[in-house]
């Protein structure tokens, strides 16, 4: 247990990586969005303005998942850390960061609603599709999305560490075949309309649930893969 916490402390030695950069990305995305809204409002635009910038830090987590592994894993082997401790420590730290950030999103969403969309009727944190849910689903939605993106990066990097280039070729070829197969299936059965209608029925709660399951599945796969990975 002790060494798991130490792994988390090691990942935090450079505080920019897990805390500084995500916050910087979030605040600059927010700032840019608000400036753009303000400019738009000066031109007397009507209606609600949406900004997708809240996603920005989440895409960084995809890169962070890769980086946490490719850079820190070989180092942690040199620090005589077991793969299990590395895995649990890194994931626990990221989950904590993601949870704190999710709560922050939720709180900012409340402020956004209270201030009438930052006095500009804009939607950055409290997208209606999400904010119409209760607080728990809202926080879990952000949390699961962040963890899911981190796990995608983490899993891809683990496959690389274990099987190197061959692993990458195999993984992306399989993924490509799956995606093309799905597209082909929908195209040949002429069911694109049904598909998009189905997508429109997704709720934030459902996405959270299925995303969470996918993240757990990927977490399991990446651990099994990491167990026999070498530096």
């Amino acid at each position: 247990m002790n060494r798991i916490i130490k792994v988390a402390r090691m990942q935090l030695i450079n505080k920019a990586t897990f805390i500084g950069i995500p916050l910087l990305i979030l605040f600059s995305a927010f700032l840019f969005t608000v400036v753009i809204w303000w400019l738009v409002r000066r031109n007397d635009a009507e209606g609600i303005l949406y900004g997708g910038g809240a996603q920005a830090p989440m895409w960084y987590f995809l890169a962070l998942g890769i980086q946490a592994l490719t850079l820190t894993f070989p180092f942690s082997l040199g620090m005589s850390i077991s793969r299990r401790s590395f895995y649990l420590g890194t994931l626990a730290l990221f989950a904590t960061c993601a949870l704190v950030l999710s709560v922050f999103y939720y709180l900012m969403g409340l402020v956004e609603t209270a201030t009438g969309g930052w006095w500009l009727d804009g939607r950055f944190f409290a997208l209606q599709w999400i904010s119409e849910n209760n607080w728990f689903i809202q926080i879990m939605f952000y949390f699961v999305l962040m963890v899911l993106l981190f796990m995608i990066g983490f899993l891809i990097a683990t496959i690389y560490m274990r099987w190197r280039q061959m692993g990458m070729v195999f993984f992306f070829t399989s993924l490509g075949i799956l995606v093309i197969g799905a597209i082909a299936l929908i195209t040949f059965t002429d069911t694109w309309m049904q598909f998009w209608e189905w997508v429109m029925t997704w709720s934030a709660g459902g996405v959270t649930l299925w995303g969470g399951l996918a993240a757990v599945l990927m977490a399991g796969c990446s651990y099994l893969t990491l167990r026999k990975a070498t530096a």
Partner: protein
Amino acid sequence: MTQATAIAIRDLTKTYKDLKALDNINLDLEPNRIYGLLGRNGAGKTTLMSILTGQNFQDHGSVQVFGHEPFENDATLARICFIRESQKYPDDFKVHQAFAAASLFFENWDQHLAQELMKEFDLPAKRKIKKLSRGQLSAVGVIIGLASRAEITFFDEPYLGLDAVARQIFYDRLVADFAEYPRTIVLSSHLIDEVANLLEHVIVIDKGQIVIDADAEELRGAAVTVTGDVAKVQEFIGTAKVLHRDALGALASVTIESQLDAGRREQAKLMGLDLSPVSLQQFVVRSSLSSASERVDEKSEAWS
């Protein structure tokens, strides 16, 4: 501290595709000694150390470190330090941050020693690791290895890019710190001449097999080179095991595995033969080469 075996290796085999990196290795390492793990590049040194530190895994056989399998065993791993020759560090780390990380995981970490060494190696604490020269990168590894004071410390060719002065600092610090804090050190190197006098025990590995496993002192003076007239040299060496033979016209220079007493030395002098000592490096080179040719002989015999 008990005198139980620090590392016990039984029937260890590791194969990469069609290359036998380790071929049925059996070894015991005692605690609180400095071992030299010698051999050519690709002989299997790094693979062996990786398996001993749980960084890699064997196909067959077992390794026990302080009586436990090291693989995924935090309690055992915590007593080991193994910095690779090509050790990777997080890209965004500065030098002092790498040491901060090491201080988390190595219980006996001596920050004061790390700081002294940083000064001696002229290592800029605030520089990013990825901006260091090859020699400075090696210095980071050397400092972690020394300051960790782990019960078993592996140094895998720790000197890449280090100049002669820096290497001497490393050797001096190693001897001094080992004397004060005895522990098991495994020094893998092919600069054998430089480290020979530091070693208490020598293990030579060649093509995945152990060819020498002996106390360093037993190897010193264990061989001698006899130079002189071909016929007289032949008469003198008799049936002694020949490690190497050079000829130049009527002159022969033969290295034999034999400890000569005063009487034999006297005899050589009277026969007009020159005797010259064989360094550990020469001995290791000769032994690995002759073991390689012996194996070829075995094979060709099996074929015939």
